[in-house]
């Protein structure tokens, strides 16, 4: 064995031990250069575009299932984790525990993270396909559905995506500066994101100040005049898209009371016995909050509460009404619907009636939306997903997809996890059957590094990210927060390179 090869093995052994120590687990391995983590030149090289949950879970399944697969994750931002960092609400830190699993994956000997690389701009998908045996697109949904109504561009109107990005420190939303000087906020949409926004708007600042919410959002919320939040949906109580955990958090939110119209719940109680367990429990809780007469203690609590929230049903936005100076939102005009059909086929139909609601803040939470990042990638503009069959991109050998860009922007992290495992299985099947040819030698990250260097792009490695991570944690500690997120990509890069 040459000295070089021995040195190589030694480095790999060391890395394995370090990884194990960090996880607190002792991993047994056999032989020296026969390590399961060694990467022979003929190993399959897979590239993943997007460093969020889909990307990491796809990578995890690939490296854990086969010992001859090398996975490189490319991410636009210098920081990894996508919506786990920028989407999950600050007061849901337990949901972010998945970061520990992602960290293990990134530190795996056969996986590497390359941040600050914009696929579609710094390197094309075609170039990635040249360098790798397979490319998996897991870049999620950066856009959002628009209401498509007049007045949507007025000051005071925001997409939930941008509002959430603002309080979660997404660099492109750092200058949002939402105006919180009004009394009433109207949120369109009744999914978990809508409830997250409502909860953050109404949570006592004393609770928020201990989370990783950005400082500028915390300061703005401390000065906020918003006292009433309406969560408006096109259809009825049985169609709310949120889940019970989030609804229960609203019901139990300190300093707030529910305010809803009993008339909007007519006939609902009668349907309970025919509902499946999850919908039944959700509807029961909704009815309890909306129309049940509270006990003495709860009544007192509600009377003391200074903030209110409520669902409004069968309402669809027609227009955002401007203030007298025509600059900002002063109200919203809603069409009144009725429901037709039943079961899964229930749909909202306009009645012709219209209702105006006075408000100064309008947040549309009607869905995220995937965008096309490279013209070489097939894209279904109507569904806003990459057309695929079980994760294999249609009409393009060697190209796969996972997560929201594959299925559409719904579901919790576990949904994306299972979906990513499915794509990984499909890819591995293709290797096994030979439909994905991994016999040729591909340059992998070496090839891409050469291109990036020529273009003046310097990727951020996972250990570079760890410097950013340490600094954010240090800044947070001073304030009693888990971290204080950096809002500027330039600053992130500075710390990464230090």
């Amino acid at each position, binding site marked *: 064995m040459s000295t070089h090869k021995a040195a190589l093995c030694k480095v790999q052994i060391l890395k394995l031990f370090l990884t194990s120590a960090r996880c607190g687990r002792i991993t047994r391995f056999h032989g020296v250069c026969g390590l399961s983590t060694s990467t022979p030149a003929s190993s399959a090289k897979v590239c993943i575009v997007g460093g969020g949950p889909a990307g990491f879970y796809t990578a995890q399944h690939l490296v854990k299932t086969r010992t001859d697969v090398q996975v490189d994750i490319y991410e636009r931002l210098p920081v990894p984790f996508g919506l786990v960092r920028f989407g999950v609400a600050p007061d849901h830190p337990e*949901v972010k525990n998945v970061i520990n699993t992602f960290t293990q994956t990134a530190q795996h000997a056969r996986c590497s993270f390359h941040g600050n690389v914009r696929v579609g701009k710094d390197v094309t998908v075609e170039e990635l396909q040249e360098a790798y045996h397979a490319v998996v697109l897991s870049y999620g949904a950066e856009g959002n559905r628009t209401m498509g109504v007049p007045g949507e561009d007025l000051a005071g109107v925001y997409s939930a995506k941008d509002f959430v990005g603002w309080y979660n420190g997404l660099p492109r939303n750092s200058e949002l500066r939402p105006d919180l000087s009004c009394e009433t906020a109207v949120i369109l949409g009744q999914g978990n994101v809508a409830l997250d926004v409502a909860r953050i708007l109404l949570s006592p600042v004393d609770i928020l100040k201990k989370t990783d919410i950005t400082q500028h959002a915390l300061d703005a919320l401390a000065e906020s005049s918003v006292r009433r939040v309406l969560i408006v949906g096109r259809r009825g109580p049985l169609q709310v898209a949120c889940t019970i955990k989030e609804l*229960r958090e609203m019901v139990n939110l300190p300093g707030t009371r529910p305010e809803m119209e009993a008339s909007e719940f007519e006939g609902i109680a009668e349907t309970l016995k025919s509902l499946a367990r999850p919908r039944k429990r959700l509807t029961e809780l909704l009815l309890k909050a909306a129309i049940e007469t509270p006990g003495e203690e709860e009544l007192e609590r509600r009377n003391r509460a200074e903030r209110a929230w409520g669902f409004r049903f069968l309402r669809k936005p027609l227009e955002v009404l401007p203030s007298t100076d025509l600059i900002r939102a002063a109200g919203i005009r809603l069409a009144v619907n009725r429901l037709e059909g039943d079961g899964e086929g229930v749909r909202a139909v306009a009645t012709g009636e219209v209702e105006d609601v006075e408000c100064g803040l309008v947040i549309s939470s009607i869905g995220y939306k995937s965008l096309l990042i490279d013209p070489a990638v097939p894209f279904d503009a109507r569904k806003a997903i990459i057309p695929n069959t079980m994760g294999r991109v249609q009409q393009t050998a060697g190209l796969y997809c996972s997560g929201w860009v594959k299925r559409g922007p719904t579901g919790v*992290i*576990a949904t994306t996890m299972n979906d990513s495992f499915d794509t990984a*299985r499909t890819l591995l099947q293709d290797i096994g059957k030979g439909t994905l040819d991994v016999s040729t030698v591909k340059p992998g990250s070496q090839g891409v590094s050469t291109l990036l260097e020529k273009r003046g792009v310097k990727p951020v490695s996972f250990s570079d990210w760890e410097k950013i991570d340490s600094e954010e944690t240090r800044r947070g500690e001073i304030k009693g927060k888990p971290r204080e997120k950096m809002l500027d990509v330039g600053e992130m890069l500075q710390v990464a390179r230090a």
Partner: protein
Amino acid sequence: MMCVWVALPGNFGPFEASTKCICTANIHHKITTSCAKGNSFLDLVVDQNVYIDGFGACEGTLACSTCHVILDQKGYDQLGPIIDEESDMLDLAFGLTDMSRLGCQVCLSRDLE
């Protein structure tokens, strides 16, 4: 000794595009555990290094449903009462049954048979 089934979605083969496949293609792994006092089933899986892809994503904090387990009647009846927060997350679990619990809340003790 308690018998616990880990309920996971998963497809090990092709499925029709029209089928909501995760409802029909679930795989049950039978894991026999010996009683470890005070630990939850999730603790046991972690401590014994049993690798189950995606199990226990939120690390036992009632923020997901990936540690979903199914017990037999005897096992189920021996467990403590279920709180709302566990039921809320269980509602989202794949392949939910009447004998389902979250593995991070299944506490194993010497008294269990």
